[in-house]
């Protein structure tokens, strides 16, 4: 069962790389979807370059939101930040009701067209799941464990770095995974505001009524999402195993 899953992933990765690098090889598969001799493969730019810039935006935004969200999560669970805890909890709830498109659209007039509004939308939207999971992860650390650490003579900082964060890590990683997956999809919408990314392919397809383009863009993003999801989940399982926890204890459900 597991070997089969790994094999399936490897095949998907191979297919993805081959398609992005040499899309013309796959033209036969998309030809039936086109009409009036429209081209079957996106030809207004390199798929590889678009994929890389898509991934770069998602990576940078997630990195930025991970750093800030984990810092904030630690801050509001320390005694000196406690006063911010109730508000930050309700902000997480409120923030998740904001549709990503709205965030994106509101960012445009402030910073102009291009990558910047997409980055801002991904960054802001990505904060929520990571922050929420950081809070959950830190709250789930058992009081007895903390008492034991205190009894061993650890100060507050040592407890945080050597006990609390490592124990919360699988849950935090699950938050990061969720955030990456949301960002991969949202970044495609970024192309409506002229960000370089795979959304360009889909939008070109919508505008010229070419289903082949729409399918290509969508498939590449979906394959990326499935592969990254699988990869990050494997990392989580490895971390959880090191902690002696049952694998898959971290949930990806946002609530």
């Amino acid at each position, binding site marked *: 069962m597991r070997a089969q899953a790994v094999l399936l992933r490897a095949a998907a990765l191979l297919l993805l790389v081959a398609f992005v690098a040499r899309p013309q090889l796959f033209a036969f598969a998309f030809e039936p979807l086109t009409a009036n001799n429209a081209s079957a493969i996106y030809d207004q730019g390199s798929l590889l370059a678009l994929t890389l810039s898509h991934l770069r935006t998602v990576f940078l935004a997630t990195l930025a939101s991970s750093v800030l969200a984990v810092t904030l999560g630690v801050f509001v669970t320390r005694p000196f930040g406690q006063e911010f805890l109730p508000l930050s909890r309700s902000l997480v709830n409120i923030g998740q009701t904001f549709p990503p498109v709205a965030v994106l659209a509101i960012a445009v007039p402030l910073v102009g067209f291009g990558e910047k509004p997409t980055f801002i939308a991904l960054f802001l939207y990505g904060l929520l799941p990571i922050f929420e999971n950081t809070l959950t992860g830190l709250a789930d650390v058992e009081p007895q464990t903390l008492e034991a650490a205190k009894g061993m003579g650890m100060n507050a900082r040592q407890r945080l770095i050597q006990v609390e964060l490592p124990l919360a890590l699988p849950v935090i990683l699950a938050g990061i995974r969720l955030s990456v997956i949301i960002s991969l999809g949202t970044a495609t919408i970024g192309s409506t505001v002229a960000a370089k990314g795979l959304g360009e392919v889909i939008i070109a397809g919508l505008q010229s009524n070419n289903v082949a383009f729409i399918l290509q863009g969508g498939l590449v993003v979906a394959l990326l999402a499935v592969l990254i999801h699988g990869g990050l989940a494997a990392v989580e399982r490895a971390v959880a195993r090191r902690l002696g926890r049952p694998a898959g204890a971290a949930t990806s459900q*946002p609530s």
Partner: protein
Amino acid sequence: MNTISSRTTASGMTSLRSIPSLDRLGSVLALLIGVALLAAPFITYRANRIVAGEGRMLADALPSKPAVAVIAVVLAIAFCAAFVRKPLVRLGAAALGLAAILPAAGWSASFVTPDGNAFARVSPSTGFWLLALAFALLAADALARLRLGPWARLLALAVAAGAVALLLASGAWDDLSLLKEYANRADSFWREARRHLWLALGSMAAACLVGLPLGILGHRIRAMRIAVLQGLTIVQTIPSIALFGILIAPLGFLAAQVPLAAALGIHGIGAAPAFIALFLYSLLPVVANTVTGLDQVPAAVIDAARGMGLSRRQRLVQVELPLAFPVILAGIRIALVQNLGLATIAALIGGGGFGTFVFQGIGQTAIDLVLLGAIPTVALSFAAAIVLDAIIDLTQRGAHDRH
């Protein structure tokens, strides 16, 4: 949770006894209010819809006496945020602040616009948004500390909605650019609003009709659960524009081949692919939470029900589903909030909804048009989240009582 917070406030009190205790969050908000008041323009004035605007500070945006009054109110609230800890007082202060700046924005629009000038546009600017943000945060913090029950939360939502409706009906905002955009499109606004609601609610209802039985089956049959949940997880990873777009092809084919489908209004482009895409997206939360909810029913309860002679079907309807109901509702909440947001994308494939204004606005770089689509969307998702959270609390309480 309770013990931690009471411990820290106690220690905070002892260390700060000499000073009237300064609220950390409140001081940050007071600082934000100060910056918004002194360093950011309250409104932007533009000679017409497209040209760049010039900012006006609050003092120049209103006649002098009311301007001083509004500034005094805002400063008093900043003081209150920094020094008063009672949540109810802070909530009142935040409400007062919003009640001061919301009409003030409308009034300043009438004041700044030259008489009879139909082209001039006035929009709220950074200062206004920062003040509104600070007051909203103050209110959110107070509400979180008050730990209101479900009915009180619903009442608060109704009061807020009523206040906004009153403000809109009174015409106080009519000179704001946002309302001018609305006035130019009043008919299409309500048409798109109905379309948006129909897309989001209709697809969610369909997802419940299909998802509940799927979830019940998935709870019983393990192999099916894995297959269904994995399939739906993959659907969730397909970006929304792509899924909307991909569905155009089969539906267009269907409409061309089956006259009945076309007669029912199913076309390749338009609402049909959007409806189906939203339906597919909302299946996962509904099915997953139905499975989880049913799994969480304690085995002892089911044994007891069996002991009482209930049949399998009776156990499901009378015991398991009622106990799983709060969790299922939580899934419905996720689906609904997600749908209300995603329905904006439908506009890209001609499906209508509030996204129409958002994408038109992006195309024309007209922020007020973007806001005309974005604000109702956010307000709807927000209201839906509050209402469903309250219902979940109520059913949880009900399930608890029955337990």
